[in-house]
């Protein structure tokens, strides 16, 4: 004879596994090896951290005063170099009075990137928004319209240039990458081999050789007499380079769409391009958003290479700012640390975002 079911009320656990003390015990003093490591690292920190803090913060000079910087040399960091030269570093050789324009243009592009990254704004008007924002950027930077003074492209530099090259590079590379990725999965051998050759060729060489090619060879490839702007040449180089890597990323997404989707579309009578446009690409692109972010971060870092072909983006602008000035030249390290911090801030934020998006996508596909 079965007894009636008696439910038991829940009780808290007898031995607490939460709380700070338990965490410390598990994570810092978990075994003799772990405890030893903790102690050694603590000793090392005690030995080095104070001197680093002294150099970086307590004995450092923050005012743009060359005298105190020279006096503090060896004992304290000269952050004054940043205070003195930050406009030259961040905005390059842009005319001093007009520097509100690149600042505004940079904010415009940063705003565009933030909006594109927020899922709420993934609507049909996002694509025209990109066009408008980029047009706005160029109008602000170049001028010549609406009473803004004309500023030629060789005076552009610093952070605005970095962001523009990365953003425009990836934006232009995207359509090329989608076509190449589709081509690489095509059943037509000629098209497939052309796409494979393009991707493997570009991925097999360093970006610097592509930039050299852009710099030295493009004038030769154009019809006689026409020599495109340096900025344009570098942009084409970056775009072609980014498109090859992006194509591989998109191809990964295309492979992840189950074959049954294409079969179902075929049974319904959709043509190849209809299937790709309406069924495959929306799913594939949603899958690869985190990977595309990683591509973007890589391109953002790679823009520092344009220094080598004499476009003074952030890294090059630092060299420009300090090499010419004998007084401040000894403090290059502080300058480098400053732009390293800028790059780190941007790239770290973008990679955090990419991880967050990956989690979101993972959550939406499970019920």
């Amino acid at each position: 004879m079965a007894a009636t079911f008696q439910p038991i009320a829940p009780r808290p656990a007898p031995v607490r596994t939460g709380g700070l003390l338990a965490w410390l015990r598990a994570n810092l003093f978990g075994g003799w090896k772990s405890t030893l490591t903790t102690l050694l690292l603590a000793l090392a920190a005690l030995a080095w951290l104070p001197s680093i803090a002294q150099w970086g913060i307590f004995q450092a000079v923050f005012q743009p005063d060359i005298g105190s910087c020279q006096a503090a040399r060896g004992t304290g960091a000269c952050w004054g170099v940043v205070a003195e030269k930050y406009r030259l570093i961040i905005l390059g050789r842009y005319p001093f009075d007009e520097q509100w324009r690149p600042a505004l243009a940079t904010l415009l592009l940063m705003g565009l990137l933030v909006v594109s990254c927020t899922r709420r704004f993934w609507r049909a008007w996002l694509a025209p928004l990109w066009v408008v924002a980029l047009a706005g950027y160029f109008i602000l930077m170049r001028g010549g319209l609406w009473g803004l003074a004309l500023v030629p492209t060789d005076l552009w530099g610093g952070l605005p240039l970095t962001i523009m090259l990365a953003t425009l590079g990836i934006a232009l590379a995207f359509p090329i990458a989608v076509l190449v990725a589709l081509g690489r999965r095509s059943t037509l051998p000629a098209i497939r081999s052309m796409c494979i050759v393009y991707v493997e060729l570009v991925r097999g060489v360093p970006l610097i050789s592509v930039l050299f090619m852009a710099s030295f060879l493009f004038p030769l490839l154009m019809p006689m007499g026409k020599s495109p702007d340096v900025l344009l040449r570098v942009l084409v180089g970056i775009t072609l380079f980014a498109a090859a890597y992006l194509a591989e990323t998109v191809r990964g997404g295309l492979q992840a769409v189950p074959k049954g989707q294409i079969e179902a579309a075929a049974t319904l009578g959709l043509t190849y391009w209809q299937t790709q446009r309406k069924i495959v690409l929306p799913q594939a692109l949603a899958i690869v958003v985190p990977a595309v972010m990683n591509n973007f971060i890589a391109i953002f870092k790679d823009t520092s290479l344009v220094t080598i072909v004499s476009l003074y983006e952030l890294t090059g602008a630092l060299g420009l700012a300090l090499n010419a000035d004998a007084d401040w030249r000894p403090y290059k390290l502080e300058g480098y640390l400053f732009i390293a911090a800028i790059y780190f801030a941007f790239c770290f934020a973008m990679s955090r975002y990419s991880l967050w998006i990956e989690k979101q996508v993972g959550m939406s596909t499970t019920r």
Partner: protein
Amino acid sequence: MSAAIIQFEKVNKWYGDDFHVLRDIDLVVAAGERIVICGPSGSGKSTLIRCINRLEEHQEGRIVIAGTELSDDVKAIERVRREVGMVFQQFNLFPHLTVLENLTLAPMWVGKTPKAKAEEIAMHQLERVRIAEQANKYPLQLSGGQQQRVAIARALCLTPKIMLFDEPTSALDPEMITEVLEVMIELAGQGMTMICVTHEMGFAKAVANRVIFMDQGQIVEESPPEEFFNRPKSERTKDFLSKILGH
């Protein structure tokens, strides 16, 4: 009965150079007939029905669907696919579109039907499979049984003459198999030509005109269900039936 709507004449198919997957298939299906195909895995049953709407190509023999012979001709393939609807084991609904959008996609883009009319047709089919209230949900928000019924409705939106079912209930929890089978039985009752690859023998007994047993690429036996289950002629058929009806 009525005129033949599917004709297979000495059809042979190979995968690669070595795997002879369909061997001398001869089959005639009349309009309005319901056929159930069963057999062990690897016997070629899915391949056979996938040849009907050219998801697979045959290398030898003739296949004629609703008066059109299947060949490399793109126009012929398009014509056949308009007459044949298919339901897959894995549903293959488009996850980024709502249920309603899944159904209106093909009529709008292939059938050139205006959106309002397409939605009307879609709602009618959704009511037919008794799932009209889920029209604005996304496929992944529905249960497996509901998704498969949406998949059936999607195929029906193009008013096909023939419906193919490739193991439609194999991926479903046991509790959901009934709702899908009920829809399929209703469809049969309305006179649709149906070819089903399935292990659901109850369905076969209820609805099929003929049951076909395939093994190693060949049709071993085909007969009406009463004869097939009670008086199987071939040893292989008896062997297979004892295995699947045993538990």
